C-alpha cells in the first residue's frame, strides 16, 4: 500500500550543474520499496508546476542498520526538477509511494546485464543490491554524454558489478551509444548462457535494447518513463501501447502495468 508523506530533505548532493541526489526522510516508503518502483514527488507548494513527477527510488538509506529514508537521482530538465535541484536540507518534499511494478530479479546461474542511459541509472542501485544478495553475476552498461556525467561508478564496483561504459564524446569507454558495446557482447555470448537484460533510459535506447534482446533471443525488462499525471492510475495520461493476443496494440497505464515491462511486450 502506498503512503504519502511530507518528507524532510536530509541532504542534497549536486553531482554536476544538472544532476543531483536528493535524500528524503521517508523511511516507511523506503522499507516498502522494491527495485524499479517509483515515487511521485513535488518540492514546493506551488501552482507551477501543478503536479508531481515520478522518480525511481535510487537508494534506500540506512544509518546504524536502520532505514532512515530514500534518495532520488535527478537531472534538471524543467521546473519540477529545478525545484528538486534547488531543495535545501530541512525543506519538505511531498512524496507518494512506493508505486508501480518492480523489476523481477533473475535466479542463478543466470546473469543480469543492466543497461542505463544517463539519469536512467536511477533504479539500478537498488536492483544491483538485490542481485548481489542473490549472488547473481551482474554487469552495468552505462552510457552518458561525457565522462563527467558517469556517476557512482565506485558504488557499483563495490557491489561487484562489472562496468562497461560508453560516452557520446568518447571521453570514457566506447565512443557512441551504450548499445554499441551491448550489441558486441550479446553477439559474442554463447546461446547456452542465460542473460536477462534490464534497461532504463531514453525511450529510443529502451527500444534498441528490447530489439537487440529479441534479435539475440534474450529476455529483457525495461523501465519506461511517460508523461505521468498522478502515478496511481487515475488520469490515464501515461499510457504506452502493448501487444495483445488479438495482435492489435492496446494502451495500458505505465504507472500501474509498469513502469517495468517485458521489452517484447511493448509496441515500440
Amino acid at each position, binding site marked *: 500500500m502506498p503512503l504519502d508523506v511530507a518528507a524532510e530533505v536530509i541532504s542534497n548532493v549536486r553531482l554536476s550543474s544538472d544532476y543531483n541526489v536528493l535524500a528524503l526522510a521517508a523511511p516507511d516508503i523506503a522499507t516498502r520499496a522494491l527495485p524499479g518502483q517509483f515515487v511521485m514527488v513535488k518540492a514546493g507548494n506551488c*501552482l507551477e508546476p*501543478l503536479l508531481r513527477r515520478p522518480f525511481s527510488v535510487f537508494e534506500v538509506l540506512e544509518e546504524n542498520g536502520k532505514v532512515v529514508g530514500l534518495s532520488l537521482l535527478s537531472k534538471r530538465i524543467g521546473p519540477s526538477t529545478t525545484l528538486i535541484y534547488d531543495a535545501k536540507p530541512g525543506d519538505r518534499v511531498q512524496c507518494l509511494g512506493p508505486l508501480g511494478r518492480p523489476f523481477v530479479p533473475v535466479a542463478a546461474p543466470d546473469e543480469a546485464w543492466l543497461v542505463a542511459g544517463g539519469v536512467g541509472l536511477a533504479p539500478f542501485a537498488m536492483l544491483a543490491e538485490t542481485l548481489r544478495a542473490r549472488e547473481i553475476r551482474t554487469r552495468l552498461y552505462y552510457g552518458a554524454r561525457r565522462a563527467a556525467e558517469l556517476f557512482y561508478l565506485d558504488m557499483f564496483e563495490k557491489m561487484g558489478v562489472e562496468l562497461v561504459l560508453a560516452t557520446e564524446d568518447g571521453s570514457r569507454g566506447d565512443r557512441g551509444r551504450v548499445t554499441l558495446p551491448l550489441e558486441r557482447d550479446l553477439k559474442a555470448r554463447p546461446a547456452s548462457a542465460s542473460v536477462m537484460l534490464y534497461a532504463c533510459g531514453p525511450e529510443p535506447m529502451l527500444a534498441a535494447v528490447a530489439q537487440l534482446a529479441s534479435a539475440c533471443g534474450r529476455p529483457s525488462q525495461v523501465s519506461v518513463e511517460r508523461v505521468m*499525471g498522478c502515478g496511481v492510475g*487515475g*488520469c*490515464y495520461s501515461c499510457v504506452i501501447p502493448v501487444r495483445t493476443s488479438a495482435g492489435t496494440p492496446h494502451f495500458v497505464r505505465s504507472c500501474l502495468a509498469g513502469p517495468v515491462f517485458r521489452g517484447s511486450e511493448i509496441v515500440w
Partner: protein
Amino acid sequence: MDLSVRIGSLTLKNPLIAASGCFGYGTEYAELVDLSSLGGIAVKGLFLNEREGHPPPRIVETPAGLLNAIGLQGIGVHRFIAEKMPELRARGAAVFVNICGTTLQEYVELAKILSDVEGVAALELNISCPNIKEGGITFGCSLHGTAGVVEAVRAATRLPVIPKLTPNVTDISSIAKAAEDAGADAVSLVNTFLAMAIDVETRRPKLSNIVGGLSGPAIRPIAVRMVYECRQRIRIPIIGMGGIATASDALEFIIAGAAAVQVGTANFADPLVWPKLVDGIRSYGERHGIKAIAELVGTIDTSAREKEWISS
C-alpha cells in the same frame, strides 16, 4: 456541522464529489482514500464499448493548469459493471456513473443498463467532453441537443439525471435552463475549457490531439462566475467544479450557488486532499456558526457591491 446535501432524491454524506476523469473508476484510489468518506465518486466517462483513447502525449501542464486530451479511453459499461461495481459497492461509495454516447440511442441504452445495477446513485451525462470528435459535446453545445439527451434519458431511468455542461458556449445559463426544463435533477458545471499549447522550438502542438481541455486553478474564477450565472436562471441543484484545490475554493462555489462540488485536478497533485477539504469546511462552519452546509448555498451577498457600483 451537518455536511449532508441533497441532489434531487439523493442525499450525499458531504458536498465533495470526485470529478469524472480525475479519479479513474474509483477503485484505483481505494488503498489511499476511504471511498465511503466522499459525498460521491463520478467515475471515468463510459461508453457502451471499450475505447482506446488518443495517443500520448495526453497531458501537458500550463501555468496553474492542466491541459488534457485523453480521448475517453475506457473499459465500456459492461466491464465496468462486472469488474468495478462490486468493489465500489463493497466500499460504500456513492457512484455517479458518467455516461457518453455518440448517438441519443447510446445514452438511452446506457441509462437503461445502469438503472438495474445496484449501487449506482446517479447518472452524469457527459455532453461536454471537448476531446472527442463525435457525440458528447455536439449535444451539449446547443439548447436543442441538451434538451434532447436529458429528455430521452429522463424517460429511460428512475436514477437522478445530471447533465455535465461545457463552458465552451456563449451562455451556459441558457443551456442549464434547457436541461432543467427537460427534466434534469441537477446540473454539473463546468467541464474543461477548450485550449491548446504549442512547443515553439518544434512548432508542434504539445498534445497529440492538438487541442485539449484546460482544468486546474487557472479556470476557477471563470467556473465560479458560471455557477453564479446559472444560479440566477435555474432552481435545480448545481454541482460546481473547476480548479477546486482547497476548502476555501469549494466554499466559493457553494456561496456562488453550488449545492455540491467536484474536485478533479487537485486530486492528481494530492490524492489525500479529501480529508483536508472536509476539515476545512467544518472549521469554516464553526467559525461562522453555520449548522448545515446547505444553509450556505447561494448566500453570496452582492448588495453592497451593487450599491458601490451605482453610487460611483
